[in-house]
């Protein structure tokens, strides 16, 4: 899994939720937790610093879980 691809996917998710009412950051994190395999989430968390992320993704980061 390449970190830039994961960042692109996360940014795409953020661009959907940025227009939604409610806690947008939580919604982004929930979507990622529910649909990404733990390995993808861990990889993403590990390499996020080097990526250009949507502000919502940055806000969601603390709520994105690793495995278990």
């Amino acid at each position, binding site marked *: *899994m*390449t970190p830039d*691809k994961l960042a*692109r*996917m996360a940014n*795409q*998710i953020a*661009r*959907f939720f*940025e*227009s*939604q*009412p409610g806690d947008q950051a939580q919604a982004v994190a929930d*979507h990622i937790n*529910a*649909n*990404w*395999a*733990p*390995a*993808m989430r861990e990889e993403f968390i590990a390499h996020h610093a080097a990526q250009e992320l949507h502000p919502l993704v940055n806000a969601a980061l603390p709520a994105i879980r690793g*495995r*278990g």
Partner: protein
Amino acid sequence: MKDLIIPDGIHGPKLSDMGTPAKSGAPVTLVIDGMDVTVPEGTSVMRAAAEAGITVPKLCATDMLEAYGSCRLCMVEIEGMRGTPASCTTPVREGMVVKTQTEQLARLRRGVMELYISDHPLDCLTCAANGDCELQDMAGAVGLRDVRYTPGDNHVETRAGDGANPRYIPRDDSNPYFFYDPSKCIVCMRCVRACEEVQGTFALTVEGRGFDARISTGTEDFLNSDCVSCGACVQACPTATLQEKTVEEIGTPERLIVTTCAYCGVGCSFEAQMRGDQLVRMVPWKDGKANRGHSCVKGRFAWGYANHSDRILSPMIRESITDPWREVSWEEALDFAAEGIKAAQAKHGKDSVGVITSSRCTNEETFLVQKLARAVMGTNNTDTCARVCHSPTGYGLKQTFGTSAGTQDFDSVEQVDCAVVIGANPTDGHPVFGSRLRKRLRQGAKLIVIDPRRIDLLETPHMGEGIHLPLRPGTNVAVLTALAHVIVTEKLYDEAFIRERCDWEEWSDYAEFAADLAHSPEAVEALTGVPAETLRQAARTYAAAPNGAIYYGLGVTEHSQGSTTVIAIANLAMITGNIGRPGVGVNPLRGQNNVQGSCDMGSFPHELPGYRHVSDAATRAIFEAEWHTTLDPEPGLRIPNMLDAAVAGDFKAIYIQGEDILQSDPDTHHVAAGLAAMDCVIVHDLFLNETARYAHVFLPGSTFLEKDGTFTNAERRINRVRRVMAPKAGLADWEATQALANALGAGWSYTHPSQIMAEIARTTPSFAGVTYELIDHMGSVQWPCNEAHPQGSPVMHEDGFVRGKGRFIRTAYVATDERTGPHFPLLLTTGRILSQYNVGAQTRRTENSVWHDQDLLEIHPHDAEQRGINEGDWVRLASRSGETSLRATITDRVAPGVVYTTFHHPDTQANVVTTDNSDWATNCPEYKVTAVQVALSNGPSDWQELYEAQTKLTRRVEAAE
């Protein structure tokens, strides 16, 4: 024919032809031949007699078509009426007294038959329809014993006097599947009427009058006519004038087994008509609830692939993909495969392996493959080809309505007043549904098409109002939100429905969002290319229709905003109150025969069967108890994620059942790199498909003719697939999966797919009431089928949404990253055509290729002229992902700036060009938008030539010792 295997309760008179279509109306009682008969008002006397078990002789009447009254054989005597009226065109009346057999009638009928036979060859013994000919039957039924007329003018003899007979027309063999022999034609018009009424193509007509009348395509032959080879005329023909060539070659069938077509998501029911274990013909089953006796060229005729010499019938293995294949026993192949999976897991962890289930295989087979991943391999790395087609439907409809399913049955189309077709091309992709929709359009229903291309549906003969919104690819959300804008701001919404059925707060939020001027048709016109006034007119038409129904296809889902578009569709249906009754709804037209089923069966990595998230402990507990194992609560990898992980070195083994990801998935180079990086690729398929060039184990698959099971079609209808012949490679697919699981130590012991269905019913609430006995009894059943809906559910969300209140969700337009620019100034979109199916693995191995032997690039005359491209020229099609070459065809069906191609042929490799862009929610690939450049070329690209060479290299099979 005898020895019928058909569902219970459908024996008896229904099997035979009732003469005219069924009607609904108040009961009317009449007396026929001394018997009281009660039938609905509007029923013909002929059908009323048939209901009473009395067969009135007939030739031009059949219950698939409206009565026509031309053959005069069905005349009857009715008290108080003069003469001998035709029973097919005479409606019943209360108290009517009918006689179907009198001396007068017998004499008149013999006279009619005598005239027919005087212009018909008497070669019955050697005729292809011998024993299956209504003319022959009727001659017997009316007691014709003598033909008094000496041969005069006729259409039968090749010669007349000393010269050629000018009336004789030679047989037309141009269609690969059936012939037209005018010398046997009795001009009953059944074929012409079937082409009009059932298929809706109007390819046939009658030329000449009186004795000169002949059936004609109006062109030189059938192949070069408008005929789409659906077979309706062949089915309707009472003689051997239009007949399947297989019947001529083999003889008449001796038994029939009702089964389900394995092509598209319409899921037509067919009679597999057999002689021994040889399939003679597939005839659409009149009691099939999806197709109502109709078919298309694929299901009706394109089954020859099942016997094609390319079928691989022995398991094969090889250490390396550069080695030739070695044919081995099932046992050796399965042990080799199991070792490969175990080795990968031992070295790289349990999540380094996965499976892909097939939307071509049965529910039972799909269930087993995902169970293999979850329960035996211990990973949730399971996905299915629905990932690349309808996964956004799953997400979007679950979020808004609460479950991932079309809301209607196909019969619902008969009550539609306005059909909105978005990103779908039913007359090519879902032909039998396309014909049913066209029938409704001819009755006056309105049509709105939202599609970059002008699809054939818009040119339906005799249709009423049609509106085309020719949007720029990638702007679906902007167009649909603009439709909602018009409905909201012009107050065309159904407030009562919204108040009762939807969440009011979410509605208020959505209404405010949609009403924003930024979403008005005028504001988005420049972006979408759709004239604002046309868009407003479409919104008003849909909102005003008593019953508005939306039908959509992959032109909706295969976009970076695929899931948002599905949500926008659900929003439109809810705003207008078009949910929860016949004639309305949201109808995803599923691509493959069992896309619905494979999704239902828990193929997705985040969902257990029945769309329940793996993190839900209560659901896991059900399966853990059933399977005696512990399940992973975390989602697994999706297909594109598996390939990414493979390239990164973390994913090492895969079992792929019935899917050709190398050809069907986007960005071929990336797929190839992923497969090449794996240590153990197990392909389970009918043919050495494109993916198999990277495989280490090949397990031979079985066709739908060779196994038992069920398919679930686009209307959630669970149809039985019945084995009509033994698996040619020894094992049905479910047996092969079980053997692989057992080689991994599973200890499964299913002996029939019905046991697998029982397990599905035990564990999955929406299937709780489903059994093979129920399906056999009812013919088919639509889920949810459980205690609340023991007979299944034709229409969903009748009294409330599955999730409770319907949920409105904002749908902001987000432009795709795939944009045109100076290097790639055109937008490529892709689709399919009638005669070929998906990657063409089956249809290319049939005579269907006479209609489509290569993929063509459709380009607008303006774009072609700028590039100096002429009709039929080789062109190079390039994107940032790759390039390929194919021939161009020039048409204004596509807008300037848009090009279109199909993806049926592996040598075209259209997916070399498509990119790795995908839907934000589900990673469904963005097949429908790729920025490309087109230029003249000399022939195949380097990649195509390299690929061709690799094909030869990777398909070698070692000679048997």
